[in-house]
């Protein structure tokens, strides 16, 4: 394990400190308990938006704190959800009185810790809502399981719900649009290599030189199955097909196509994936109205990518286009 780190246990502390130094114009970083808030929080009259989760997915979530997106982000240890002791003060810090929405990726740990924090915040008089993100079609959903994970769709939920909050939507409206995005978005990922959690010291799984792992999540966990290496077009089709069919996409639909790098894949390769996915969608009569290509929700240095498709309506499109000014996503502001 070779990493640009000092003490493996200080990775999150030092990284978030550096992040705070680099983006002091946009965010304020609290060290203990650790959370990141928008510099001008709480914004009077605005619904607060808080997300968080294990670290190692940067720029998610800290990179999305700022005007038009999150009011606060709560980073846990690497791949470990944060604790209520962090989530609660972050929630209180961004509550202007209009209430707070938690955006929670569907993992047992995240759900339980945000749940506890929400209860505590409610007990302190904050009106709370939560949006659960579970867009990963690699996981079979059922009443009896932990259900689908939240992956790439999270970025889109945060952007669009963030724009709704910024334009002054009510607590219920912000939560509703977040839910709507979640219901309209699906993702699927592939790993070419595993990643190594700093405190674990060894990779989470091992892939042979000619193997890839299909249906991986973002926590260095193995995926659904392992197959021999294929070319980019073949892999793209494998990822896109279940996304398209689960969404029930049809000719005439407008979508946002998001090709996400897992952290260790060159941008040039992401565009090769994007090319094929865009061609395949075009062939089905689906219009790619908006796109996003890059490392936006990562799994440390993992090589691989995920494809996320969001079925757009006019409101979502307008909210996607609305100004955003965060360390990792910025336009119109």
């Amino acid at each position, binding site marked *: 394990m070779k990493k640009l780190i000092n003490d493996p246990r200080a990775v999150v502390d030092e990284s978030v400190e550096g992040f705070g130094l680099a983006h002091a114009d946009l965010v304020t970083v609290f060290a203990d308990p650790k959370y990141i808030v928008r510099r001008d929080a709480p914004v009077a009259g605005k619904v607060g938006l808080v997300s968080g989760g294990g670290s190692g997915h940067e720029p998610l979530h800290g990179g999305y704190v700022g005007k038009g997106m999150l009011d606060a982000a709560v980073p846990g*240890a690497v791949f470990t959800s944060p604790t*209520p*002791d962090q989530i609660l003060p972050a929630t209180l810090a961004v509550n202007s009185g209009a209430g707070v929405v938690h955006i929670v990726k569907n993992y047992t740990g995240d759900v*339980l810790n945000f749940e506890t924090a929400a209860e505590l915040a409610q007990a302190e008089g904050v009106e709370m809502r939560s949006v659960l993100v579970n867009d990963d079609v690699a996981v079979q959903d059922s009443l009896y399981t932990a259900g689908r994970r939240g992956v790439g769709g999270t970025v889109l939920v945060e952007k669009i719900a963030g724009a709704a909050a910024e334009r002054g939507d009510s607590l219920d409206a912000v939560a509703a649009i977040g839910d709507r995005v979640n219901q309209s978005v699906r993702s699927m990922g592939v790993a070419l290599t595993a990643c190594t959690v700093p405190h674990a010291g060894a990779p989470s799984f091992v892939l042979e030189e000619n193997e890839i792992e299909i249906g991986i999540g973002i926590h260095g966990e193995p995926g659904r199955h392992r197959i021999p290496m294929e070319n980019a077009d073949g892999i793209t089709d494998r990822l896109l097909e279940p996304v398209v069919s689960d969404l029930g996409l049809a000719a005439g639909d407008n979508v946002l196509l998001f090709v996400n790098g897992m952290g260790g894949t060159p941008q040039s390769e992401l565009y090769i994936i994007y090319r094929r996915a865009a061609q395949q969608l075009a062939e089905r009569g689906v219009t790619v109205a908006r796109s996003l290509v890059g490392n936006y929700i990562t799994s440390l240095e993992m090589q691989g990518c995920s494809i996320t498709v969001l079925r757009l309506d006019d409101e979502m499109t307008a909210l996607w286009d609305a100004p955003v000014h965060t360390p990792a996503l910025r336009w119109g502001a």
Partner: protein
Amino acid sequence: MGLDLNWALQWLALSARAMADHREELIELDRPIGDSDHGENMDRGFKAVTAKLAETPPETPGAALKLTAMTLRSKVGGAAGPLYGTAFLRAATALGDHAEIDAATLVAALQAARDGIVARGKAGPGDKTMVDAWTPAVDAATAAAAASDGDVRKVLDAAAEAAEAGAVSTDPMEARKGRASYLGERSIGHRDPGAVSTALILRAAVGAAA
């Protein structure tokens, strides 16, 4: 003779040592079917518990468990933090402010812990989680309390042994809760790390009573 504050403190100290000693093993168990952090999470949590207990010494076994619950909840994160936090909190409530714990109270506390985990995590037996260690432990403790003459050591021992067997029993299970559930069939053949940490904690309770 019941279990007192000393036992509780000793239990938590031995649990902390077990988490440190088995840190790597729990990480390794979490690697193939999880995210390689269970050992790190539990070790970090119980180190914090040790510090907290030294900082504000509790006066009853129940208070010790409550402090443990709050600390685990605030330091562990992940799935294990809230689940163990709830377990210790419910157990603490079951102990009330008794200075000594008899066999019946002990069984009630174990049951409360298990029920808390199920209430939070919604896992049932066979889902390949720590519930598969807790449930046989509660059943064995109940039986031991009924069979024996109220010897808390026998109750603890029965619980630990059943939890250990319960942890082993997760090997062939297909996970339906927690991170391992994402693997579906591929989770078969691996032991659940949370069930193993549960067995270690219950074994520490036996050691503390020796």
